[in-house]
């Protein structure tokens, strides 16, 4: 938006003309924010409408009670503690997936043989629902955060591997030749060309990984831990606190949205 204003000010043309030109180029769309906001309002309205009748199955999950429960949640110390623990598990699981996944992806992208060797095992492992590892994880890592982090890592690693490999393959071979002609060896090629060339792909992988990890986090916390967002949902169910369950669901959705945004912004920024 700032650049649009700057352009309007520097150009001598009337602003309308400039805005119209920008709209045509697809860079600035004044209707877009209105659409985003009205979409949210409509969704809220449908929820409200569907939950108003006492006969409605959604009656116990209506927005008014949820709003009250939400404010109560925000002053609840246990909620913040649980949230912090969930975030910590997410961070550990994702970091693990990243640290292990990127080098594997690079190897697969770099060497056809590595790709062939890993293809069947990886496709096989990828298709296993991460939650089916739960008993294995608990037996190996015991009760606590360990299994949750493991489940997040094993679900998040696939998009990271696949996209890192795709990034290496998408790097223009001529960039590598240019670098070699300028005196680059393998190390310099990796450092100056491949890492930067694959960065947009890695970020897309990370974005997808975050999405999967966030989805897996909540059910993983329903199994074998006594804290975190997933555990709290079960906890509220046990005391029939429906409004708080709905409030937690809202929080989980909002957080997922917020976590995605910085990555989305970053990957738009470094696209080439």
């Amino acid at each position, binding site marked *: 938006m700032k650049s649009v204003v700057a352009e309007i000010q520097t150009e001598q043309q009337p602003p309308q003309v400039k805005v119209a030109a920008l709209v045509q180029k697809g860079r600035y769309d004044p209707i877009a924010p209105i659409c985003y906001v009205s979409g949210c309002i409509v969704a809220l309205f449908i929820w409200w409408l569907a939950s108003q009748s006492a006969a409605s199955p959604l009656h116990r999950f209506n927005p008014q009670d949820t709003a009250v429960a939400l404010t109560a949640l925000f002053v609840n110390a246990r909620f913040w503690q649980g949230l912090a623990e969930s975030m910590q598990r997410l961070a550990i699981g994702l970091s693990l997936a990243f640290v292990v996944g990127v080098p594997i992806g690079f190897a697969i992208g770099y060497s056809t043989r590595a790709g062939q060797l890993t293809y069947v095992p990886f496709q096989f492992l990828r298709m296993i629902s991460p939650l089916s590892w739960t008993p294995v994880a608990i037996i190996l890592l015991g009760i606590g955060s360990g299994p949750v982090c493991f489940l997040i890592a094993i679900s998040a690693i696939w998009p990271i591997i696949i996209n890192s490999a795709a990034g290496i393959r998408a790097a223009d071979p001529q960039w590598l030749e240019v670098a*070699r002609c300028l*005196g680059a060896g393998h190390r*310099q090629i990796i450092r100056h060309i491949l890492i*930067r060339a694959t960065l947009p792909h890695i970020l897309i992988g990370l974005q997808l990984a975050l999405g999967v990890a966030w989805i897996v986090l909540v059910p993983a916390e329903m199994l074998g831990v006594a804290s975190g967002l997933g555990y709290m949902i079960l906890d509220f169910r046990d005391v029939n606190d429906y409004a708080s369950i709905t409030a937690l669901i809202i929080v989980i959705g909002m957080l997922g949205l917020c976590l995605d945004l910085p990555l989305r912004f970053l990957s738009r920024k470094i696209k080439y």
Partner: protein
Amino acid sequence: MRRLSANNIEKYFLQEQQRMSALGPLDLEISPGEFICILGESGCGKSTFLRILAGLEIPTAGNVSMDDRPITGPDYRRAVVFQNPALLPWLTVQENISLGFKIRGERVPKDLVQQTIQLVGIDGFEKAKPKTLSGGMAQRAAIARALVSNPDVLLMDEPFGALDALTRMRMQEALIDIWNRHRVTIVFITHDIDEALVLASRIVVMTPRPGKIARVFDVSQKRSRARSDAEFLKMRACIADELVQSFKESREFEWGRMA
């Protein structure tokens, strides 16, 4: 300025289990400060020859050397300009031109980079991203990237092939200017007779399958490079005849084989 020599080089490719000869046997001595154009139709192996000189490909037989030292791989003292600029899209023009120093871990000589940018005439675009440049501008940046390391040899593979006719002429003038000032050895691949005549001090005409030297024309005497010059037109006709002759022979050869 170094002496390049190719001794009896050959290059084979495998095609459907068969050894296809793409190049040679071919001998060529390139003297320091020479501007040599290698002229031939598409697929005559001229690019392969250039890539061998660059060290990007190894000949199947024979050897290439620079100052009697065999060429075994790429070297920044033999700078290469490809048909497309191949600028790194995430770097600015200036950063692209300084890339060689960064790769070699040297300090970037800012003044020299700026001078080179001015030499190729893209000053004012230092901070631009390659995506925003026209084809001619991007190719100038690629030439600057090759020149800035002060190479002994400049290897150019149809560098103006993708440009429109007017931009190409402008770039040719700029290149002659650079050569006149720096006397760097240039090996320039082209399929354009006029381009070869305007630029070269020596023209090597190649014939295809396998790529061999058909004839060498010495143009160094004639420095008036006006396209209307009688000498220019005469030599142009000579080279054209040579090329036509060469592919007539190869056609007859193919027909003979078919019969």
